[in-house]
């Protein structure tokens, strides 16, 4: 009981549901459309973003008292870019195929509003540990939606999950067909829209 009332835990849990960066704040939509055709890419993207946002929050928060106010955006951007480049290099070294599929979108984490937004609004005015928790929460909140969208898109669009066949052959034999539309970006829009609707309905109860 005590854990859930803890301020750090609240900071972590809030963006997971109550204040989700994608479904409530509607940030980071661009990458959510692009990388959610398959579970693999969505999961790796979620992890990369979570890594970047937690450590950028942590670093910015540690340095917050020595960052001169007039150049703070430059500071935040440099820290974020450095982390993104490191994440990209690691992906290229150890997950080459996935990094090819993600192509520019790992690099574009730099411009993801969520990362910059958390650094500017939260990490600049809070202590390191709680900022790290906030980054982790926002990263996972973003990643959760990504994975959920990818789940529907991959399952309905190609009958697979993580590249493994899920829809049995007998379905196809009986006339079932994959929805090609799910593989296109507009499908992600529709799924995100439905998720927002669902979440708002549950929250308003």
């Amino acid at each position, binding site marked *: 009981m005590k854990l859930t009332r803890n301020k750090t835990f609240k900071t972590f849990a809030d963006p997971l549901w109550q204040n989700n960066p994608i479904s409530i704040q509607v940030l980071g939509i661009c990458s959510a459309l692009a990388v959610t055709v398959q579970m693999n890419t969505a999961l790796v993207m979620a992890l990369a973003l979570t890594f970047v946002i937690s450590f950028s929050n942590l670093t910015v928060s540690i340095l917050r008292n020595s960052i*001169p106010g007039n*150049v703070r955006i430059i*500071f935040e951007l*440099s820290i974020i870019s*450095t982390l993104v480049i*490191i994440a990209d290099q*690691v992906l290229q*070294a150890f997950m080459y195929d996935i990094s090819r599929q993600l192509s*520019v979108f790992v690099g574009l984490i730099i411009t993801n509003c969520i990362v910059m937004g958390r650094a500017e609004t939260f990490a600049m005015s809070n202590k390191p540990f709680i900022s790290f928790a906030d980054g982790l929460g926002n990263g996972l909140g973003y990643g959760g939606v990504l994975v959920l969208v990818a789940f529907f898109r991959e399952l309905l669009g190609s009958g697979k999950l993580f*590249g493994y066949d899920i829809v049995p052959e007998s379905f196809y034999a009986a006339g079932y067909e994959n929805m090609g539309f799910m593989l296109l970006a507009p499908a992600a829009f529709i799924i995100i829209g439905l998720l927002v609707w669902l979440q708002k309905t549950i929250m308003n109860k």
Partner: protein
Amino acid sequence: MSDYRKSFMSVGILCVVCSLLITTASTSLRGHQLRNMQLDRQKNLLRSVSLIDEQKQYLAEEIESIYRDNIRSFYADSDGRLLEATEETAGKLPIYLYMPEDQILAYIVPIDAQGLWGKIHGYLAIDNDGSTITGFTVYRHQETPGLGGEIERQWFQKNFEGKKIVDRDGNFVSVGIARGAVEHRVPEERQIHYVDGIGGATLTGRFLESSLKDILKEYEPVSVRFRKQMPLKTTE
């Protein structure tokens, strides 16, 4: 210290620290990345002769062993004769042979073509009849994702299979990229020399088409030897 000096100092320190971090990450991971790139090239080369299954995942060692067992690397001189990779190769054309045993089943031409935004790198495999394309793959390009970038997609590459680079009289014609679907755009007797183009990527198609023509023309002496079944090695 004035505010300005403080800002400049801190930004300076930040820059040095960030560059050090990036340099460390990139140099220490370089080895892995180069190996991945080489594997990716080998994989694409194997794909051009359909030696690996698209749907399956392969371990690095599997790719390397399939490559070792089937592919041999040579250089071609201006007469189309093949030289071992160990001989003097300056100015000669690199070429790969798909020969699981002593018989050559296909030859593979490395593609280094001009695209709209940069180079397009890939492989084009031609059957041992010297005229039928068996596969085309792309492993690196800078075309716009979703438009010219479609050249890396299966549907576009599969398109090339079975197309002829010579006409019925044996004249070299290369392979063209139609503006749209071949069956609507190209007269029937010439359809065998054209592949379907990519919607919204007319320029990528045009550049790739003309580069392919130049490259295949360079390799014509080799192709002619295959067509006429002339000996390929200098020693024979």
